[in-house]
């Protein structure tokens, strides 16, 4: 297993081990990464990432962020990285709703950065929900 994968969020180091392959939700669509991939830096969209770890496919819901790929190493920096078991459906739904309400409320005008932040929350929460429901079925 020749590819070192590190997944880091501001709160903690989520994962660090050797894996066989990694699939990332890149800015221009999903990309698969195998060992000996060319050096690459990409922006990430909120969505699903997968990797093959000891013969098992692990899926995580991730927020926006960046990934750096070298021939032996993949580093994923993201705001959120949750496995299926860590996602709680009702709190995630609440988060989406709160963010949407805030976006819709006309009282306080939000600046562009705030709007982007809220949209980010909605996008990453939706990604988490999507993953959770997929596994339920």
């Amino acid at each position, binding site marked *: 297993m020749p590819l070192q994968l*590190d997944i*880091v*969020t*501001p*709160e*903690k*180091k989520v994962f660090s081990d050797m894996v066989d392959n990694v699939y990332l939700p*890149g*800015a*221009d669509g999903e*990309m698969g990464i195998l060992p000996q991939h*060319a*050096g*690459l*830096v*990409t*922006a990430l969209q909120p969505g699903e990432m997968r990797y093959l770890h000891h013969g098992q496919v692990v899926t995580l819901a991730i927020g926006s962020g*960046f990934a*750096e790929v*070298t*021939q032996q190493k993949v*580093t994923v*920096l993201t705001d959120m990285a949750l496995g299926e078991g860590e996602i709680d459906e009702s709190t995630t739904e609440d988060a989406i709703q709160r963010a949407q309400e805030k976006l819709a409320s006309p009282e306080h005008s939000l600046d562009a*950065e705030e709007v982007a*932040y809220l949209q980010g929350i909605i996008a990453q929460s939706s990604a988490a929900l999507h993953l959770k429901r997929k596994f339920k079925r």
Partner: protein
Amino acid sequence: MANLRDIRRRIKSVKNTAQITRAMQLVAAAKMKKAQDQALAGREYAQRLTQMLYDIRKNFGEESNPLLERREGKRELVFVISTDKGLCGPLNTNLARKIRANTSPDADFVTVGRKLRILCEKLGRRVIADFTVKDPVPFSQTRPIAKFLSQQFLEGNYDKVSIAFTSFVNTLRQEPEVVTLLPIRGHTDGEEQAFETIGKGFNVEDHKNDPQYDYLFEPSPHDVLAAILPLYVNYEVFQAVVESRASEHSARMVAMKAATDNAKKFIKELTLEYNKLRQGAITAELLEITTAMKAME
């Protein structure tokens, strides 16, 4: 020699002081744990982000993003993170000394924390903005600071932005530091050591021999840089505030523990003296009675 009542009064007052410092110690200890966890948790991310910038530095020139631009001017803006309250040992004094040594004498200031803001005002330095940050530090409150600092730099009001903060080493040790935030020095021109970072996470020396890659960028080099640099500034500011908070609570905990210990020692000494005096008084009294009895016989 002090009399009995005076000593009793002093013991009482020292006891009260000890009680207060002990309470403060416990409060600081509880906050310290949280703040330290936060500071340590954020380091990995900040370090990786720095590493990413360091790895791709050769793919960019100074001109590819305004946040990288070096200017000739000398106008400096210093973002100072101090504490709101005192009683935390030499933390603020050390930071003030560091600032005096490492920044230009006519720099302007942006502050978090009351203590050094007051000092800056006393010294007649210009404080152009003051922010308050809650405890524990929420990321959403440091974002406006980062935005403000970048804006000042981008609008050309200042040519250099530094952060003065206290780096958390461990509970007993905190180090004042002044680090250049903007322009971001991610590129090389023979002075790689200038690549500074918050929280001691990333050491340029350790990575000198890393293999170099020609990176591809997706969606485009320009877009990646435009997204990653502001994120980097945000996280450096956040990490600096978090480190300072961890340092503050650690320093206060240690200072208050020392104060409590001192008070306890003092109480012990006073009690000893009090008992000696008391015994002396009793002996004197007994002596008087027996001599009086002897005289009567």
